[in-house]
């Protein structure tokens, strides 16, 4: 009997010691895991984790490294090791690289327009609607919310064919503007929900005081609320810009003329039928295409993650 009590006391003491140990450690280091465990086991576990993460990420790393290296090298040996430096793969920046492919700048301008247009239209659509859904109690509000959610379940392929018909009727086939509007439409449920989330986060005292001062809804929205949700607008613009800039399938299907090419169709054309591909040129064009995305990705990573999570908030 006494023995078990003794044991109990020992266990409790050990726990207290562990708690002290833990508190001591966490006050001084910000290590989040495994403070108490056997040190050598812990190290082995960590090495295993890093090994797994590094090995699985290697194909990604190799692939991205390849397009950069290949775009500047005369020849690639062993797939990834460059041999000789050249800028001839980048000649699409100052001349037509071959008989079929045009110089890149008009294509670049189309792509830029597609990205900026999508971003602009997305903000134009989602800021007033997001505000109204967050703050106004008007008949049809719930219906509208339900509608955007249901539409969110209709991605890509289900609308592609009839969108082709709609654009043809509106004489918007072969025009970047048509793709901009399709993009903005398809992204609008997402953008509206994200903006609604941002408006929801603004305390309504600010709005209230403007109300008391006699401002109407539109003034409040424009002058009081919009400055408050600037981070949201920023996040949506970047997100839609990247989506617009990268648009692939809609450009491929809705734009059939060379004048309307974007960088997606440009690279698709270089790729052609996989035979006789100029891999250096392909790599250089890919780098050119991906650079703005990488730029935004590196500098606004946190924003993008916030939007990605914000858009899925319902599940969390």
């Amino acid at each position: 009997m006494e023995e078990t009590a003794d044991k109990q006391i020992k266990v409790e003491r050990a726990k207290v010691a562990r708690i002290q140990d833990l508190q001591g450690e966490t006050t001084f280091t910000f290590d989040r895991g495994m403070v108490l465990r056997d040190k050598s086991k812990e190290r082995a576990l960590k090495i295993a984790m890093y090994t797994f993460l590094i090995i699985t990420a290697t194909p990604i790393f190799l692939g991205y490294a390849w397009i950069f290296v290949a775009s500047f090298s005369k020849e690639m040996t062993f797939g990834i090791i460059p041999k000789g430096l050249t800028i001839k793969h980048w000649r699409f920046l100052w001349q037509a690289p071959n008989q079929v492919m045009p110089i890149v700048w008009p294509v670049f301008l189309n792509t830029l327009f597609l990205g900026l247009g999508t971003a602009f239209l997305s903000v134009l659509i989602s800021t007033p609607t997001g505000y109204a859904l967050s703050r106004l109690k008007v008949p049809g509000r719930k219906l509208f919310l339900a509608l955007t959610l249901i539409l969110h379940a209709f991605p890509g392929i289900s609308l592609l064919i009839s969108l082709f018909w709609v654009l043809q009727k509106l004489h918007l086939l072969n025009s970047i503007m048509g793709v901009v509007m399709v993009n903005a439409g398809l992204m609008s449920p997402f953008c509206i929900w994200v903006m609604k989330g941002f408006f929801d986060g603004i305390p309504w005292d600010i709005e209230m005081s403007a109300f008391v001062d006699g401002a109407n809804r539109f003034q409040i929205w424009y002058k009081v609320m919009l400055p408050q949700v600037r981070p949201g607008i920023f996040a949506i613009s970047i997100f839609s810009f990247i989506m617009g800039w990268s648009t692939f399938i809609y450009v491929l299907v809705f734009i059939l003329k060379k004048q309307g090419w974007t960088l997606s169709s440009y690279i698709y054309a270089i790729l052609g039928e996989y035979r006789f591909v100029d891999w250096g040129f392909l790599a250089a064009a890919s780098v050119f295409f991906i650079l703005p995305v990488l730029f935004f990705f590196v500098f606004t990573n946190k924003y993008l993650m916030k939007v990605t999570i914000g858009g899925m908030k319902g599940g969390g």
Partner: protein
Amino acid sequence: MKLAAIGKLYLFFLPALVIILIFFAIPAVTTAIMGFTNMDFQFKWNFIGFGNYVKMVKDFLIWPIWREGKLARPNIIINTAIWVFATLLINTIFGLILAILTTSIERRAGTFFRAIWLLPRFTPMIVYGVICLSLLLPTKRGIFNAVRGAVGLQPLDWISLYPMAVVIITGGFIGASMGMVILASAIDSISEDLRRAAKVDGASWFQEIRYIILPLIRWPLMFITAYQTLSLLTSYESILVITKGGPFFASTNWSLYAYKAAFDVYSGTYAYGYGAALATILVIIGIIFSIAYWRIFKFKEMMSEPKIEVE
């Protein structure tokens, strides 16, 4: 007066309504109607009843031929099932592993690895395709084959030999990041006290995952599974870029089949009506899934009444 005031408030919805109506609602209805026509590039509304759906049954049920115990022609339904199930497995299980690992190591290293895994998601699809092809090239120039060559093995034509494996893995590399980001933030938001308590009680790392983390991230995990099932059912862009659904139809799934029916330059059929019918089936499945989400994830709570109301 009051009615007019309320009417004015609808101006807030106007831009969204116009765009959604023209580029979302009308096409959604049109798809369903178009499925009953044999429309081609001439855009004639020639109604043929359930003709497209009969053709579909013929295509999918009679089309695959068993020869000497082997499937001589690939079946789109089987392809779609394999594609959705296997890629979903990568997206959730691998995404979960990445989320747990990147939250278990030092914070900076974790953020770094998460950023690497997010890259494929933000890379334009066509560039992602180029990168995958550079890895998979059948000659010695391909990076995987260069590695094989270094140890004295012959180069392999990965895409012809393992078309489904190629599309599943390349698709999974894009999809895993969504699970990773959401689950990592869910794990991060688990109260530190709970994890400390487990440690104080002497739980091992695996026990901590099994008994603390997994039960607490059950809902996001289920949400990702449900959401990804739907997106995988309708996604085909990465397949189109990397294998073009081939060789023959070996890696073509349902949505790519619909795309090919309508827009494939090489077959030149331009069967918009048939493509629309194929898409309609996907839409119906999509609606069923959405209703299920609605029930499971209590979207009603997200639509709660606005806080401020001044009239």
